[in-house]
């Protein structure tokens, strides 16, 4: 007596085949757009001399945060250069930037939508839960299926994995705006669009930025996993280190990822805080 076998694998395969045939133009389009954005950012970062990139990030940090953060950013980048992984780091940065841009472009509107409708929120919640609890490796499978091997599927897998906190925190941020402030907005005759853009979103910015910050961290954690399917970058160093049992190389890749994570965390953290002039009288 043997188990009756459900031919699940066959079904899935033929469904995917059908999808790829029917929507090939669609997947090609996505692939093309991601490629353009990704290679644009990557070539810019690699084309610029390293000291210009460092200077630019240092200036950005100085503008949005305090000078101590700026110094940290400059030293961090310089250190990665001295480890000999500059090009790899720029590849990772480009991949993260692309994935985060796409994630945020979807996450914020979805979060807003969820905040304005309980039905949408209820529908989205289990989907987001599933997206976040699923082991990150699982996302590699559909990514490979639809987009093959390389950087584009790496971006796709990263986007899926990194998007949920952006949606959640945007939704939360808008829902947390105090009732009396929303009431005030309505009482003075705001349209719902004015209410959204003049009151709800500005007041939700710190929370939304926390979501963006989370998205970036999730994306970075995908950097190593993405390397398995050929996303390159620092993840490749780590992956290479594992497969060749080259601990030193793996360590350099790992520490560089940590440095990038810290830099991006400080930068986005500072962007979430409202900047204001000193009080006139204190």
């Amino acid at each position, binding site marked *: 007596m043997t188990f009756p076998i459900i031919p699940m694998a066959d079904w899935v395969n033929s469904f995917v085949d059908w999808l790829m045939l029917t929507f090939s133009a669609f997947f090609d389009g996505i692939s093309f757009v991601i490629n353009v954005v990704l290679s644009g950012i990557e070539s810019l970062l690699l084309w610029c001399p390293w000291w210009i990139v460092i200077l630019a990030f240092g200036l950005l940090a100085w503008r949005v945060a305090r000078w101590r953060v700026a110094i940290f950013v400059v030293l961090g980048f310089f250190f990665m250069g001295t480890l000999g992984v500059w090009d790899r780091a720029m590849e990772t940065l480009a991949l993260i930037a692309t994935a985060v841009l796409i994630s945020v472009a979807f996450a914020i509107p979805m979060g807003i939508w969820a905040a304005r409708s309980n039905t949408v929120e209820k529908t989205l919640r289990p989907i987001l839960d599933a997206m976040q609890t699923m082991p990150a490796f699982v996302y590699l499978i559909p990514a490979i299926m639809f987009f093959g091997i390389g950087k584009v599927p790496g971006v796709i897998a990263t986007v899926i994995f990194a998007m949920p906190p952006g949606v959640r925190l945007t939704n939360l941020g808008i829902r947390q705006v105090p009732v009396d402030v929303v009431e005030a907005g309505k009482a003075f005759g705001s349209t719902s669009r004015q209410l959204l853009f003049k009151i709800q979103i500005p007041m939700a910015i710190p929370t939304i930025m926390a979501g963006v910050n989370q998205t970036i961290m999730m994306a970075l954690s995908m950097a190593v996993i993405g390397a398995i399917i050929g996303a390159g970058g620092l993840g490749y160093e780590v992956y290479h280190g594992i497969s060749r049992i080259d601990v030193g190389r793996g360590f350099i890749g790992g520490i560089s990822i940590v440095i990038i994570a810290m830099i991006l965390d400080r930068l986005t953290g500072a962007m979430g805080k409202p900047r204001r002039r000193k*009080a006139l009288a204190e």
Partner: protein
Amino acid sequence: MSSNNIKISCQNLWKIFGPHPEKVISFCTDGLSKENIFQNTGCIVAVSDVSLEVPEGEVFVIMGLSGSGKSTLLRCINRLVEPTQGEIFIDGEPMSSLNEKKLIQVRRKKLGMVFQHFGLLPHRRVIDNVVYGLEVQGMDKAERAERALKTLDLVGLSGWEESYPDQLSGGMQQRVGLARALVIEPDILLMDEPFSALDPLIRRQMQDEFIKLQKVLGKTVIFITHDLIEALKLGKHIAVMKDGQIIQIGTPQDIVTKPADEYVADFVRDVPTGKVLQAGNIVEEPSQLATMDQEPEVVLSTMEAKAVENLFVVDSEHKLKGLVMMADVAEAVHRGATNLNGIIKADPAVTEADRPIEQLIPMAVASDIPIAVVDQQKRLLGVVSRVSLLSHIGTSEVADR
């Protein structure tokens, strides 16, 4: 001054929160209690059959404890809360007939609102908070900034326009809230416990300033409070609410002297009536008066008959001329004078009818002669004796006797 036009009128207004609110109204009219209805239907009756009229230019106070439905009632007026049944008219126009667009227009032009917890936008500077109502109307930047500065000056916040709300004290934040409401030049101010979140000292100061401001602006104000003293101080009329219903509507003096039921009586028990009651409320008919043309002999015999030591003297138009003392009258009779000229003391203690009786105490202490109450034309309305003053001072429990 205020005319008698009805600015806002509520007619049989109901607001019920919960599933199938329409059905619940019939339960209410059948006399089921709120608790009963909540247990059986899960609905909360917030406003129950409220009707009221607010004349133009008047401060109308709605007073009740938390949960009495007063804030819900206020929000029904600008439809932040949609009434379940009944109608609200502003300038005779039914609010329920407005579509979304027109409702927004009415809110922008006619209704200013002030909130208990200020409801300021923390990410905007004071001036950007104040211009909010003008900004959503699409007014140009220079004009709205100019109006905002003027309004900030009016509420005493000049120089603070660049600050952020959290850099201001509570009292100042509420001034910003008030300025934001006033800047749109609304006919109507809806004030939802605007001073309740402030310290007692600041609260009193804000009340006084509000009274001053209102004298100049003459807005129609609906003012919500849970504080009876505040209600009595600010309101021309007060509606007392309990469990979503209005129990009594009346002037502050009505509420204190003629509470409609035990609940209101309980409320006003500890009210210092000396602040609320006015001379006109406790005035008594003088037992006897003298007129200018009376002969001293006649006056003397009246005094003896009534056993009084003094009489107020009025002229033919009932205007108060002064007071005569028995000794002086007797002396005039002895002298053979034919009228009261020369013996009238021109300066008895006099008060206007709208003076709080508390302020009569020093006069009553200074002399045992009753205090004369006169109207604006100096006509004598009556007198306030020491006894009646004493019996009305203190809490209303004493006044009830």
